[in-house]
């Protein structure tokens, strides 16, 4: 009997006890990398040389091999690093020890730690965090804590910050086929900060909101990188009775709600599946004698493409009987994924098998083109009872053996409910197994780097530069009448000081806020190089608006002019557009002039007639006189004429 699936869109998160914490990685805007003098942010598709390495697990400071480390050693990958001489030196190749840590990066991390209200460490200790997946050639990431603890207000509650660290970025993966994985090293060792929150979020949407909020806090320093890949998140999810599962490297905030919901449901389904297995009387002992059997001879004449390909490549077919699991392998754990896909994920990563189908089961064999009769023979060969399931893996003999062992191991882990692991994002917004969740055992001190004292003087200098927290700025900006999205944009904008100065000088906070928080971005998106405009010109234009010399509505047009001719002073820009000041008497004369040369309106309705006249008049006063003033003068003239 199939276990009923819960639709992630309709799940009751409170009832499921959803808990979610996030780890936000944000690249820092520094000239150089964290532990060497290579330029940061220089990406390319070119390489000058390759280096090949392997990773072995080692012992941590506290004495044991780490679980992840062992698993990855099992996978035995050949790791190739592509080296571009412009972006890497011998440090990234792990052929030179680290140089002194980049203080600019530490300083930005401290600045963000202060903004999050963290307790700042007295001494900064570089430690090594093991990553045996090859994404870092040393086999570990150099990382160090700048702050511990902290709080962030979100919708009337406080989100706890666990810690903030500054660390070196990893390589970019180029390909991962079988036992060969290839990385590009240009991104390697670029400085980034990692902010880790408490699991204080209880719905998928909250997780996304908090990521966004923390991202804005970091961007408000003006010292972090923007653009694709500059910010990546890990999302930790659990439900009541489940396990903290880490979804790694979520590239975009918009994916977060779907991924969190999907993981919550997956955990619930795995918990339900455990209940069902226990109800059926299955225990870990049930699977103690499950062994893979080489059944390749059965497929020698089978005419399906994948079996032919496997045999042609000299591969083998290994099958294993899973007692009592006949109806359970097809348990849905996601919109499109079943428990058999969970097995497939393990096989792909640990046995390095990547030819689909990864795992063939009783439920999929028919559709894969295996004749029912053949499968029946296979089941008979394995002495299956009607309630037993069969899982079949195929590939190079050692890998296929590893695969069936891993399948059995994963089935036994069902009794844990949700096994500890990290998961990767797959296309379609679902996740798949990445690796066993590593513990603190994989951390040990970096003997190559001396500790760095964080002095009171250093912190005082940073505190002096500290800005109002973004959540307070949001409130202040909304209080002057800006809509939330504009306020949030302006609060972290580098143009905020400009806005503040102009407002202090008497400019209209809302009109200027809309310009700098909304129109500006739109103009930039249209391709206007607004960055070229000297700050002095901007200040003069805003002062002119504050003084009533030019209307706010004319400012976008003037910004366009200024972007095209950044050398022109503000006054010249105004004059070129004929935006010289105008007295009311001049305006009244101008209105009379225009009216004289206008054709009579066809409508007899007074309101329509006035709309017609105003429409004709306004272009003559664009940017020089407010609509209400023109209207008042028009009314006076008409009244006088009547």
């Amino acid at each position: 009997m199939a276990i009923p699936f819960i639709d992630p869109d309709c799940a009751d998160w409170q009832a499921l006890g959803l808990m979610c914490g996030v780890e936000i990685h944000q690249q820092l805007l520094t000239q150089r990398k964290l532990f060497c003098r290579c330029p940061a942010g220089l990406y390319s598709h070119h390489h000058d040389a390759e280096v090949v390495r392997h990773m072995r697990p080692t012992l941590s400071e506290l004495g044991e091999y780490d679980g992840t480390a062992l698993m990855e050693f099992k996978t035995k990958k050949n790791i190739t690093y592509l080296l571009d001489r412009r972006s890497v030196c011998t440090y990234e190749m792990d052929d030179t020890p680290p140089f002194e840590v980049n203080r600019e990066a530490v300083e930005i991390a401290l600045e963000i730690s202060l903004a999050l209200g963290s307790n700042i460490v007295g001494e900064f200790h570089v430690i090594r965090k093991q990553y045996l997946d090859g994404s870092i050639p040393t086999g570990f990431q150099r990382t160090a804590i700048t702050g511990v603890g902290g709080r962030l207000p979100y919708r009337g509650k406080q989100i706890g910050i666990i810690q903030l660290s500054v660390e070196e970025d990893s390589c970019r993966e180029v390909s991962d086929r079988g036992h060969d994985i290839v990385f590009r090293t240009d991104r390697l060792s670029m400085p980034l900060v990692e902010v880790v929150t408490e699991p204080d979020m209880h719905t998928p949407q909250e997780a996304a909101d908090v990521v966004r909020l923390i991202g804005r806090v970091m961007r408000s320093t003006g010292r972090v990188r923007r653009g694709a890949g500059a910010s990546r998140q890990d999302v930790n999810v659990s439900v009541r009775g489940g396990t903290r599962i880490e979804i790694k490297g979520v590239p975009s905030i918009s994916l977060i709600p779907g991924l969190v919901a999907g993981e919550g449901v997956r955990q619930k389904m795995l918990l339900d599946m455990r209940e069902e297995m226990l109800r059926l009387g299955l225990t870990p002992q049930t699977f103690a004698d499950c062994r893979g059997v080489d059944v390749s001879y059965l497929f020698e004449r089978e005419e399906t493409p994948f079996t032919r390909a496997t045999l042609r490549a000299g591969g083998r077919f290994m099958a294993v009987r899973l007692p009592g699991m006949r109806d359970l392998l097809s348990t849905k754990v996601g919109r499109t994924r079943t428990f058999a896909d969970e097995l497939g994920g393990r096989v792909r990563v640990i046995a390095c098998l990547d030819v689909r189908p990864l795992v063939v089961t009783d439920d999929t064999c028919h559709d894969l083109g295996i004749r029912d009769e053949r499968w029946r023979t296979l089941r008979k060969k394995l002495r299956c009872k009607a309630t037993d399931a069969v899982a079949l893996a195929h590939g190079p003999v050692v890998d296929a053996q590893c695969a069936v062992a891993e399948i059995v191991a994963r089935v036994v882990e069902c009794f844990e409910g949700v096994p500890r692991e990290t998961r990767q994002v797959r296309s379609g917004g679902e996740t798949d197994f990445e690796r066993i969740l590593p513990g603190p055992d994989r951390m040990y001190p970096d003997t190559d780097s001396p500790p760095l004292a964080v002095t009171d003087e250093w912190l005082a200098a940073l505190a002096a530069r500290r800005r109002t927290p973004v959540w307070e700025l949001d409130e202040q900006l909304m209080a002057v009448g800006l809509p939330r999205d504009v306020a949030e944009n302006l609060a972290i904008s580098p143009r905020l000081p400009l806005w503040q100065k102009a407002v202090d000088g008497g400019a209209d906070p809302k009109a200027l806020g809309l310009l700098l928080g909304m129109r500006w971005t739109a103009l930039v998106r249209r391709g206007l190089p607004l960055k070229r405009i000297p700050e002095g010109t901007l200040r003069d234009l805003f002062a002119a608006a504050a003084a009533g010399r030019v209307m706010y509505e004319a400012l976008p047009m003037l910004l366009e002019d200024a972007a095209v001719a950044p050398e022109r002073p503000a006054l010249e820009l105004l004059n070129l557009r004929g935006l010289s000041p105008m007295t009311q008497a001049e305006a009244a004369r101008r209105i009379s002039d225009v009216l004289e040369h206008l054709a009579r309106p066809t409508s007899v309705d007074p309101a329509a007639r006035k709309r017609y006249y105003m429409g004709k008049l306004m272009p003559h006063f664009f940017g020089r006189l407010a609509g209400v003033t023109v209207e008042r003068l028009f009314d006076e003239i008409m009244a006088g004429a009547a």
Partner: protein
Amino acid sequence: MSNDEFKGYRGEALSVLKEYAAPVWSDVTIASARGEFKGIILPRSETDDEHHIVLKMASGYNVGVRACDVQAITSHARKEAHYKIPEKEFPYDPQKSKVVLLGTGGTIASRLDYRTGAVIPAFSPGELFGAVPELADICNIETKKLYAVFSENIGPDHWMGTAAEIFKAIEGGADGVIVGHGTDTMHYTSAALSFMCQNLPVPVVLVGSQRSSDRPSSDAALNLRHAATAACMGPISEVMVCMFGPTSDEYGLLHRGTRVRKMHSSYRSTFRTLGDRPLAKVWPGKVEPLTEDFVRRDRNRKCTLMNKFEEKVAILYYYPNMQPDIVEALIDNGYKGIVIAGTGLGHVNKPLYPALRKAHEKGIHMFMTVQTLWGYAQMFVYDTGRDIMSFGVVPAANILPEVAYVKLGWILGQTQDPEEVRRLMLQPVNHEITEREPIDGYLVMQGGLPEIDSFMKSVRR
């Protein structure tokens, strides 16, 4: 509480820890002026300052808390850690050869030391098997820890002692000997052992690592497997250095002990044979000689041990404007031999002449080598060379300066007779002087040239 319970802490930090009775390994909460910090108090590196307390937090990270900020320390428990390589008995296979591994220290197998934050050696067969189980596929291993010193602290006593142990291991029936050694001075030791242990019936392989074995990317395990292969099944019965060929995890090279030199402070592929070809390429389980010119394994050959050494020998690395007082100091301090690393073909400046003449008159044995490392000391080419020879400085052909130093010390340990010293010095024991420089003996590729760029792209380095 003894100071040992506060390992590495001094001054301000020590008194704060004592005040709150919080020794190392205490699981604590520290209230400080910068907020609260929780974790286990770790021992502090003795070279670090006395103003901070190091905590290992639950996340695995270490942080330092300023001692002057501490307002209170609450201890919850004590969690002492013992760093231990999982020790498993090295399995014995009667089908496999017996290799003796002599440990002198260095990073080939090592662990972290909390107090110094440094890497310290660990070496029993059980630990080795725990760390590199693949070794059991190659050979049976017996280990003996001779010293536990970093290679900069290795000297003549260690060379003599190691040579004697090699002799003993061979007498004891070893099919090969591995010497674990720090890499910095490995080429001095390999030269010394080449002279001290002659007529080897089986291989003697020196091995180390450029990345300590506490790192996942360490070259230690692969170097050990290569060395075990060369020692137990390789055909070459000489003293060799076995280290990475390229920086990639591809293959190792066996370098002749008298022609090898460490050429980069940190690269994995730091060892190079100079002025000749390496002896062989090596993979786990396979040795592929690159030359025919080597001494073959022969169990019946009798090893001769000549482990004597005269310590009063120096290398004089010449530089422009060197003053004679340097040479005078060597004379005054009773030095018996001087190896000069001269410029170009073997030159020093004129102001040194009187001092060199004086040294010669005092009976000091002097030999000229070249600081270019490649090429021969050929002192007939210029007047300078002829002048210097007239003061008794003997050109020592293409022997490497470090090897010449070791060889002169070894010779003077046996004889002081000038003619005999000169004869022995110029008569090669094992290729430290070669009659010919092969045309591919000097290959230092120049980066940036288009042809080298395309070569670099086509090979794994």
